[in-house]
């Protein structure tokens, strides 16, 4: 119950871990890109604005130069007119008519009395003068400059002196001398040249340039007629107060430039939103695309990741759970994945095999142990031994050796009590010694003191624990195989002492001894002696099962000299015994 809960929790954790990873990656990248986009948009916006301003300023500078050149040309024409005025009447007429008809933008040259403003003469090229001129917009007494060589420029107005024709012109007024008289001379000019130039200036998609004077009157605008028709308006009130340079106003960037000494200022108008928004839109679009790609890539990689890591891990986990539930019957099918997963899977596979082997071994040992213990017990209740002993006791009683008979019965009872020991396999060394003493006492009676025996037990060893019925089979062996066949009196010595971490039991006799084959035979064969007692092998097996291979019995024997059987066990204290 607890285990399945744990398993579930691990499973969920793993599952959400991969999910969370995907979400995190996508989330972080999206957030990072969004933040990046925002920052980028800001930077891009300001840099684009700056670029637009710079290009606007460059454009207006250029136009300023062109306008300046154009004005220089017009002043040149005025100088030409001035020269013509110094000539004779006929030559002057010819030259001026020539000038008006040749210069594409010259409309008329008019000459006025500087005092009265009366129109004295006019040169108009192809056009016809009105028979009666009601209004003359070209002449403005306020525009007459102070001295010669200085020229002033009017605002745009219609030419009102022609028959049925009213072109828009600007008037350049100067003072000239002809025949010793000072005259105001006006050159009316269309600005078709500048106009066509300015019309062709495009800034961005809808940006444009226009010319205004310092009072904010529009001199020329590419959409002049739209302004006239009231469909468009330039905010010249704000513009006229602005110094040269660029500024932004309601999403529109204005760049203004003017030449020193010129009345005209060039204004470039570019639409921030249009130029910048278009670019920004494409950038944002690109970023969206990037985000999409990243999300897709992340999803794909998380799928791949899941397939290669998470899923194999899950499989491995399931296999482990399966193994946990049913270790014996489990067959492991290797899980495939990345290199790490593969090696993990292989290790697990090996582990499964090893554990199953160990389990089988333990099971087998357990069975052996039970069998051996059972056999040891059986041996104690061996009827043969019991009959013989009881026979001996009976005989003693008949003989009237009651004291001995009592001793004998006591020894027998102790022998059995300790043999059984409430079913415990491990008993204190003290008890084992008592057991051996009881046995020896019985045997000594039976063999009529054919042998002597002695115990040398270190006091400190008594409290350690050992397998029960350890010494008895060895003593039995010593009696039957060593001393029984002797003519002289035999002697059995039992030493128990500690040696390092171990307790050493040794049983030494001075009997006939054994050949090496016999020694090996005793340890290998499960053969019982004639007495039907349990063999030394049984003891050895039990010691080894309980304490490990390094412990157990060793036999040293020499023919006609005697045998020494040594048993080694670890120092086992009472508190370390598993009950």
């Amino acid at each position: 119950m607890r285990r399945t809960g744990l398993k579930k929790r691990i499973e969920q954790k793993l599952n959400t871990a991969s999910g969370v990873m995907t979400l995190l990656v996508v989330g972080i990248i999206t957030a990072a890109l969004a933040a990046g986009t925002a920052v980028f948009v800001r930077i891009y916006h300001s840099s684009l604005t700056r670029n637009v301003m710079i290009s606007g300023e460059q454009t207006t500078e250029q136009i300023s130069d062109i306008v300046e050149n154009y004005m220089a040309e017009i002043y040149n024409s005025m100088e030409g007119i001035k020269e013509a005025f110094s000539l004779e009447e006929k030559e002057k007429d010819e030259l001026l008519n020539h000038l008006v008809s040749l210069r594409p933008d010259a409309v008329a040259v008019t000459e006025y009395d500087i005092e009265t403003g009366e129109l004295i003469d006019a040169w108009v090229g192809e056009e016809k003068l009105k028979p009666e001129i009601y209004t003359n917009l070209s002449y403005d007494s306020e525009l007459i400059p102070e001295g010669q060589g200085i020229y002033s420029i009017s605002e745009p107005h219609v030419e009102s002196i022609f028959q049925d024709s009213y072109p828009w012109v600007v008037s350049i007024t100067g003072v000239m001398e002809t025949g010793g008289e000072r005259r105001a001379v006006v050159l009316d000019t269309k600005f078709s040249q500048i106009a066509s130039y300015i019309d062709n200036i495009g800034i961005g998609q809808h940006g444009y340039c226009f010319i205004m004077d310092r009072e904010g009157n529009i001199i020329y605008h590419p959409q002049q007629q739209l302004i006239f028709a009231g469909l468009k308006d330039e905010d010249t009130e704000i513009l006229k107060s602005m110094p040269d340079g660029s500024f932004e106003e309601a999403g529109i960037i204005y760049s203004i430039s003017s030449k020193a000494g010129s009345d005209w200022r060039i204004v470039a108008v570019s639409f921030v939103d249009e130029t910048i928004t278009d670019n920004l839109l494409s950038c944002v679009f690109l970023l969206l695309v990037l985000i999409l790609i990243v999300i897709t890539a992340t999803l794909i990689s998380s799928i791949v990741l899941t397939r290669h890591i998470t899923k194999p891990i899950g499989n491995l986990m399931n296999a482990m759970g399966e193994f946990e539930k049913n270790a014996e019957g489990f067959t492991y099918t290797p899980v495939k994945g990345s290199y790490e997963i593969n090696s993990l899977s292989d290790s697990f596979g090996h582990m499964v095999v090893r554990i199953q082997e160990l389990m089988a071994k333990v099971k087998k040992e357990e069975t052996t142990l039970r069998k051996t213990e059972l056999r040891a017990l059986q041996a104690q209740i061996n009827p043969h031994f019991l009959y013989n002993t009881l026979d001996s006791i009976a005989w003693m009683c008949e003989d009237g050796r009651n004291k001995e008979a009592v001793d004998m019965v006591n020894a027998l009872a102790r022998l059995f009590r300790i043999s059984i020991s409430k079913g415990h396999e491990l008993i204190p060394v003290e008890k084992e010694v008592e057991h051996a003493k009881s046995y020896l006492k019985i045997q000594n009676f039976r063999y009529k003191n054919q042998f002597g025996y002695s115990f040398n037990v270190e006091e400190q060893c008594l409290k350690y624990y050992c397998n029960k019925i350890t010494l008895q089979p060895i003593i039995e062996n010593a009696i039957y195989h060593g001393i029984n066949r002797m003519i002289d009196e035999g002697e059995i010595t039992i030493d128990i002492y500690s040696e390092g971490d171990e307790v050493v039991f040794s049983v030494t006799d001075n009997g006939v001894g054994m050949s090496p084959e016999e020694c090996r035979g005793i340890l290998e064969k499960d053969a019982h002696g004639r007495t039907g007692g349990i063999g030394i092998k049984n003891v050895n097996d039990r010691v080894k099962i309980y304490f490990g291979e390094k412990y157990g019995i060793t036999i040293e024997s020499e023919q006609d000299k005697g045998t020494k059987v040594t048993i080694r066990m670890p120092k086992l204290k009472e508190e370390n015994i598993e009950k």
Partner: protein
Amino acid sequence: MRNKTSLKWISIAFTAVLFMFVLLGFAYRGFMEGKISQSTKYKVTMIMKSTGSEFFKSVFSGGNAAATEYNVELYTKGPEDEEDFETQNKMIREAIEDGTDAIVFSAVDYNENAEAVNEAVKAGIPVVNIDSEVNTDLISCRIGTDSYEAGRMAARAVFEVSGGEEAYHIGIVNFDRNTENGRRREEGFREIMEADDRVKSIETVYVLSTPEDACRGTKELLATNPEINVLATFNEWTSLGVGQAVDDLGNKDSVSVIAFDSNEICVNFLETGVVDALIVQNPYAMGYLGVESAYRLIEGDEPKERDVDTETTVVTRDNMFEPEYQKILFKYE
């Protein structure tokens, strides 16, 4: 075995990403191209009452300005004769066949043009009505002079420019009585005149919308009604005719002339005193707004207003050269 499948997966993923890149690249290009220019320009057909008058030239030039701004292909059309509604109808049907996206239309005849306009609208082509109206509810919007108000302005101008006579005898030289704007202008004009005690008589003569016929009609009107001391006329061609007649007869001082529109000859008449006031409409704005509205309609936007009145100004000899009036009266070329 396993490595092969993972390799397969990685290559599939890689191909998918690559494929997406290519697709998005195309989408992006399409998006940018769509933004920068429409793949095909919209076609807008402008059908006016004629092509020769200064008024309609100005309409066309306004239309062209808008066409340039909105990147629209503009076709300008109109019959030679301002009475010729049949040619107009034919032009509408041709435009439908040519697959125009919108029509900007000024009707010669209030009723006779209605059917052709309805056909266009039913064919899914929005129609913007400018200047002169047409009798249908299907047009998307109307842009032009408020003709009734323009007629009233003309009437008020009469009292302004004449030197306060005691009795006014009015002569009206009007064009085709089936043309809605001419009819409405006369109605507005008559409303003011009929309400004024000083007005003793109002005579109307209907002429063809040509200077020659208007001139002839005016002379006839003046001959049969010599007491007439005010002449009013409501479009460019008839204005030229009336002006010419008054100039020919040499009675510019005894007859006040109220005319329409800003033909240069008419402006000259205003300056010389033949014509006393000009009611100047804003044809450039009509053309510009007409094409602009057509563009908006094609783009699927609703027009801001269904009925847009463009500005009308009274220009007299006294104010004609003031800077503001110069801009209204004289076209910038």
